[in-house]
């Protein structure tokens, strides 16, 4: 196997430069690459285009990069949790491309599958369709949407081996596998880095061929955005 290990987030992002396009895995604050985001904030790299489903919250996730004005453009599907985002957007400081969530995921997947474009019905008849090619198949209209082209994809997994194979945990999977496939260079931070052979080949979510750098992250906060619970008395509700 090919050893993809790097020491830490700083080494993993060493060659990310101003003006680059990054994909960042996660849905809300779930499954985001916390270590790499912190390292990007520390590095202070600017003029970035970020592709991520959400933009974090004001003081966590991509929100930290927004506060430091590191983003030129954000490509996302839902940004409702972030006041600083809305402020930068409405003031014109931040360029924003809002993309239907399924289109966002599929444009990542298309890159990983070597497909230059895909067809989706999402957005037909709306402003999302403006300027895009519409094509009818079997009586239904579809938009032609292009694969993303990202310099780096940065994902977070639960387990990974030094060959780059990744396994995600629960719904922290979300966009991570499709982004992991889609970067020119893919960086994976994992909660548990193990030796080749410790992961069952049948259970790998992202084959190592897609991953260029891997490291074991630390101090995961894993913040919960909407803590919703029920009490034991509701058990039989």
């Amino acid at each position, binding site marked *: 196997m090919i050893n993809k290990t790097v020491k830490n987030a700083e080494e993993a992002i060493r060659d990310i430069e101003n003006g680059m396009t990054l994909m960042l895995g996660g*849905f*809300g*604050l*779930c*499954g985001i690459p916390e270590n790499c985001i912190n390292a990007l904030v520390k590095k202070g790299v600017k003029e970035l285009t970020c592709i991520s*489903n959400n933009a974090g919250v004001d003081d966590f996730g991509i929100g930290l990069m927004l506060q430091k004005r590191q983003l030129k453009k954000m490509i*996302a*599907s*839902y*940004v*409702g*949790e972030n006041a600083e985002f*809305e402020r930068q*957007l*409405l003031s014109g400081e931040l360029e*924003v491309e*809002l993309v*239907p*969530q*399924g*289109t*966002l*995921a*599929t444009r*990542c*997947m298309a890159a990983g599958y070597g497909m230059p474009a895909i067809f*989706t*019905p*999402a*957005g*037909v*008849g*709306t*402003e*999302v369709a403006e300027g895009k090619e519409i094509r009818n198949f079997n009586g239904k209209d579809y938009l032609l949407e292009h694969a993303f082209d990202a310099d780096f994809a940065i994902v977070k997994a*639960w387990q990974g081996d030094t060959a780059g194979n990744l396994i995600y*945990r*629960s*719904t*922290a*999977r*979300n*966009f991570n*596998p*499709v982004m992991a496939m889609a970067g020119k260079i893919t960086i994976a931070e994992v909660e548990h880095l193990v030796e080749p052979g410790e992961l069952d080949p049948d259970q790998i*979510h992202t084959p190592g061929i897609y991953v260029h750098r891997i490291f074991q992250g630390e101090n995961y906060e*894993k*913040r*919960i*955005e*909407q*803590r*919703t*619970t*029920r*009490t*034991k008395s*509701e*058990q039989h*509700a």
Partner: protein
Amino acid sequence: MLDKNGIAKRIAQEIQDGSYVNLGIGIPTLVANYIPEGFNVVLQSENGLLGMGPFPFDGEEDADLINAGKQTVTTLPGSAIFDSALSFGMIRSQKVGLTILGAMEVSENGDIANWKIPGKMVKGMGGAMDLVASAKNIIVAMQHVNKAGESKLLPKCSLPLTGVKCVKKIVTEMAVLDILPEGGFRLLERAPGVSVEEIKNATAGKLVVEGEVPEMKLS
């Protein structure tokens, strides 16, 4: 007039046994509480979960297990987890048969607007555009009028659209309506104590009333 739970309760009657359903944020989320006992209904959450269970007990929240509303949830025996691309794959291929979601406006030809108020609010469409473009059956759960007292059932949406000619049925605090193929809101049921006249006054789009309109039955 129904409260939010009443709307959810009425919508739950639309859910068929043995079906896969996607519930949007807000009132739709409440629908889960009223699915008839004994019904096998599987809830899909578009971030990548099939078989969404109830909220976890206090102290058992798992940051890695959330729904599309970012709420902590649980799995059920038989649940499956997958990535976001496959999640929308099953939506686009119409395996998820019913989508229930909120709206800011619905037009009499079934257009829906729920993601943007130009110059004022930009939250984004999330998965709504994919859902309304694909699901066979789309039910909207919303208030009949907005906070300014204006009807949300319009001849034509004024806000940027989420999808066109896709809404099949609407349940509000006042009424159940469906969209006629030729256009128009057909009044199917009145909320308890609400008159046809009141519904007419609250509906800006073309309202079609055929014969006697029954009152909703909420068991």
